[in-house]
């Protein structure tokens, strides 16, 4: 059997399951990568219950907290990963720079390592066995339509500002949505959380009470669950302020609609994604999978994703696949010197514009919390259901 006969089946959400990546894999590595895009619920569900239906899972770190203990994924030997040392600190020891504080929530490094091959636990330090290889990550904040709002927005608290009644929206993925809600409540000064990533039942109750009241008052136009919904809500003018993902804002902008990724004084809510290997993967296919991971971290994909507004786990390697202008704009937060385009050729920014939120350090250095799975997760889910049904 030759490597070009191998087919690896990868699934994930449409965020990173891009066909261009598969094409490039075919070109560079010779084997076939089959991409299946699913919605986020289905991703979790498949990773947790159908280990035979995939070879590579492209999931988020907080989901790993649920999926890893099932044993459906296998630990990865860091020694086989060429660029391991160049992976940003966030995914290794939690610190962007040696003196950063670690944000609240399920920080990626806390679920990034396991005790060894076959392990279903998490260990705090770099054990040499990784659960997921980080791929992309970003910091999220509120997206706004400056043309329809017409004034500066500085705080998460604005989401519940009655001024935007019927024109606000929130993410309806409970684990993430509650974080945004917590950011809002904290910004309003209503609640002081011990750890937003791991709330007490009391904190959950109070958060949901505030949100429920706002919902009943008609604050929200809609909730969204998929990337595309958030884009449509924003670009159709249904909503002028909502919690949003950075590339979604980019997508709205690429249609020529003004939309701002609004840095806020309370900081960002952040997330990271990574790829894991199915435990049923072995032999040549496993070798191919390692080859794929190494390739993934070697820069091309990083550049490709960075151009859409994500960050690469190994920025250094990506740099070689980007122009100085691009690197300056996307990573260093500098003014563009020429028009900036996304990988599909759509112009996103003209010369002279700067990226919202600034440089990599400015963004990722101001993470207030990570998407997470709480100890009181089940309780939180039920409360969230109540909120939706209210």
């Amino acid at each position, binding site marked *: 059997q030759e490597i070009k006969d191998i087919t690896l*089946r990868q*699934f994930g*959400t*449409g*965020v990173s*399951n*891009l*066909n*261009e990546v598969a*094409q490039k894999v075919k070109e560079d590595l010779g084997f076939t990568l*089959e*991409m*299946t*895009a*699913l*919605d*986020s619920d*289905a991703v979790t*569900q498949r990773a947790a*219950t*159908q280990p*035979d*239906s*995939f070879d590579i899972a492209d999931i988020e770190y907080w989901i790993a907290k649920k999926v890893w203990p099932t044993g459906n994924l296998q630990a990865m030997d860091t020694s086989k990963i060429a660029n391991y040392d160049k992976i940003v600190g966030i995914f290794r020891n939690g610190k962007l720079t040696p003196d950063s504080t670690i944000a609240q929530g399920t920080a990626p490094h806390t679920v990034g390592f396991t005790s060894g091959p076959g392990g279903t636990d998490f260990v705090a330090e770099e054990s040499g066995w990784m659960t997921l290889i980080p791929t992309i990550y970003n910091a999220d904040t509120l997206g706004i339509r400056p043309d329809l709002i017409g004034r500066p927005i500085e705080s998460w608290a604005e989401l519940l500002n009655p001024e935007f009644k019927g024109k606000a929206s929130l993410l309806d993925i409970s684990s993430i949505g509650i974080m945004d809600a917590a950011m809002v409540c904290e910004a309003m000064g209503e609640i002081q959380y011990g750890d937003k990533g791991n709330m007490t039942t009391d904190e959950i109750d109070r958060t949901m009470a505030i949100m429920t009241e706002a919902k009943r008052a008609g604050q929200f136009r809609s909730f969204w669950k*998929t*990337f*595309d*919904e958030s*884009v*449509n809500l924003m*670009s*159709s003018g249904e909503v002028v302020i909502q919690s949003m993902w950075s590339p*979604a804002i980019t*997508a709205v902008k690429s*249609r*020529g609609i003004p939309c701002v990724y609004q840095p806020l004084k309370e900081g960002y809510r952040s997330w990271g994604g990574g790829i894991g290997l199915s435990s049923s993967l072995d032999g040549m296919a496993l070798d191919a999978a390692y080859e794929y991971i190494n390739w993934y971290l070697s820069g091309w994909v990083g550049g490709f994703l960075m151009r859409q507004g994500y960050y690469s786990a190994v920025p250094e390697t990506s740099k070689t696949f980007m122009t100085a202008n691009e690197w300056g704009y996307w990573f260093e937060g500098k003014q563009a010197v020429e028009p900036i385009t996304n990988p*599909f050729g*759509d112009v996103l920014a003209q010369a002279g514009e700067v990226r919202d939120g600034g440089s990599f350090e400015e963004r990722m250095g101001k993470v207030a919390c990570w998407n997470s799975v709480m100890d009181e997760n089940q309780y939180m889910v039920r409360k969230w259901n109540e909120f939706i049904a209210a």
Partner: protein
Amino acid sequence: MNPRPRSFYVLAAIFGLFLLFLYGPTITIAILSFQGPEGGLTFPMRGVSLHWFRDLFQEQAVGDIWGSFGRSFVLGLMVMVTTVVVSVMGGLAFRKRFKGSAVLFQLVIASLVIPSILVSLGVGLIFSQAGLPVHWASSGFGAQLTWTVPFGLLIMFAVFNRFNPAYEEAARDQGATAWQTIRHVVLPIIAPSLLGVALFGFTLSYDEFARTLLTAGSRNTLPLEIYGMTTNVTTPVIFALGTLTTVFSFVVIGAFLLTLGAASRRRAKAGSDAGRAV
């Protein structure tokens, strides 16, 4: 022929509005599919072009429309054939009023009314607990059958309620075996209804979402794929797909009606002097 009463025009207007309502989304889709390359899924229109129709035949950023279309199509055909076969056999069986048929009938009704997500969940659970791999052609196929087969069966009930058993007796009288009776008499006579069952089975399967959701396995059917595509920026390309589907359906149905018309005209011609003699 009597002149049409006033109520006809009122009802015709209501029917027209109903059609307009049914086609509302279809029309929106059609309009939006002709946007320029900057177009999104919402109004206002951004340019006018055939860009998205061209794009439909190229690879998308996310997902594999034609691959999943192929799977949906194959699955639709599998479901269609199975539905026709199973419901014809079932329809024949129920005419025999065998012991236990009442219970089986209750099950058929249950299958029809049980919420789709339960079937999806249940089949998914069974497969995962039994350690079987879920696949659109196994678990997905089965889950869809719980919906199409009862429908097909109901149609077969309607058909056999109107089927004159004298045809079968005549065939038996003429020395046809049980199988020959079915093959040469029953099936040809009910063939038009079978076409209906087939069409129905295919349509229901082709657009089935809930029952396939937890049972499709590693590869998506078209509805799942489209749903999955919404986890990234979806472009008017899915509207182009919708428009193309609609045009295709019009062509198919138009052809069907023309054949029907031609057949009846041919028949009318052949029998023009029927009833004159004797």
